[in-house]
């Protein structure tokens, strides 16, 4: 089962990217995430690994994930290494001046789960979709706040330069 959700944000792809590449931010915007820990030496980039847990229904679901695509500032993709099988992707594309579209893709499923597995995938979809939408709304708020902060900094620097 693959679920796609997207949102438009008032910030260029570079701002979105800088927010998404920092693993410390994930606990602040990922809905349902209860644990996000860097595993190993590499904090981000291709091959970086994280132990994550997300509350979905009755269970905290997760495991070890590895970044398998790191294409700045467009794509970040990951696969599960252990734990519940899934893969995910952030797809960031420019949509006009200072605007971006963030697409969040999430695919999950258990090979060999049979009919109950299929039923569960379908039943879980609305729960997962709701969490993805909340995640994108929170990400939009955080990124746009970051963008406003950058713009304010720029205005402050311009004012100081004019005074000097």
């Amino acid at each position: 089962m693959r679920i796609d959700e997207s949102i438009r944000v008032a910030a260029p792809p570079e701002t979105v990217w800088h927010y998404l590449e920092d693993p410390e931010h994930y606990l602040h915007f990922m809905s349902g995430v209860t644990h996000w820990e860097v595993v190993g030496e590499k904090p981000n980039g291709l091959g970086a690994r994280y132990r994550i847990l997300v509350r979905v229904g009755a269970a905290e679901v997760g495991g070890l994930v590895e970044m398998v695509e790191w294409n700045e500032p467009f794509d970040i993709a990951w696969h599960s290494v252990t734990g519940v099988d899934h893969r995910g992707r952030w797809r960031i594309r420019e949509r006009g001046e200072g605007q971006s579209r963030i697409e969040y893709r999430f695919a999950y499923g258990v090979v060999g789960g049979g009919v109950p597995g299929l039923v569960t995938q379908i039943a879980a979809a609305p729960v997962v979709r709701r969490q993805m939408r909340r995640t994108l709304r929170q990400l939009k708020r955080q990124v746009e706040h970051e963008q406003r902060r950058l713009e304010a900094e720029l205005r402050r620097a311009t004012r100081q330069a004019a005074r000097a």
Partner: protein
Amino acid sequence: MYFAEPQGIGSRAVRFLRERASARLRGRLEDRDPDYIREALPLLWLLSTFYFRAEVRDLGNVPADRPALLVGNHSGGNIIVDTFVFSLAFSTFFGVERPFHQLAHNLAMAWPIAGEMLRKSGTMSASHEHAEEALAAGAPVLVYPGGDWETHRPSWESDRIDFAERKGFVRLALDAGVPIVPVVSIGGQETALFLTRGAGLAKALRLDRLLRLKVLPISIALPWGLNVGDFAGHLPLPSKITIEVLPAIDLEREFGPDPDVDEVYEHVTSQMQEALDGLAAERRFPVIG
């Protein structure tokens, strides 16, 4: 052993067959099948989420990198819903790759299909040897000291920890040098209306000697109506299941180099009772939660 001692002609053949069957039924460490567990998770998630509206709290209290003895209160008659919920939560939290074993009554292990499912899920028959073996292999082990006595208590005693003074788990943790992690659950005793353990009836029928059963419970349960023994299980009512994992108790640090078994038992059961009182206070209605 849960079979009666054979008498008379053919006893050697019966004993031979019994020992072979018994060895297979008891379960072994290597019977646990992570792929089987992974494939069972979707169904468990479905039932736990939508039917039992289950909630498992503070699984992070289970030590992530060393074995521990998980001690739970037992509920739900022979359909131990909270065990399935906890197994799901453990497997999704730590991953099916982390070994995890539970101990169950011999009778549960002997069921034709369910017994095989239990063995693949990492369940072994309840014995000190099995628990020691699993702990020595580095796996957390879940035990229910209250066993059949506690799981068949009347529904109105749902909020009571009753291990019937079975203190073997304390000695087990001390011998293995592992912490005790209490696991407290509520809701299982509302999956049917449990009326009585039927302890007197079990004794009169000598079930304690023949099948290691100290109870012959009587309940009102689906689809049977009046359910005596609960041997075939029952269809559980959709009772809300809530499970709380308490902080690990390091016995040496808490009780010194030579902990007293009675003192540890009192400490563990009182901590569990306190947590269960809290969970019971959260519930507004039976079954609904």
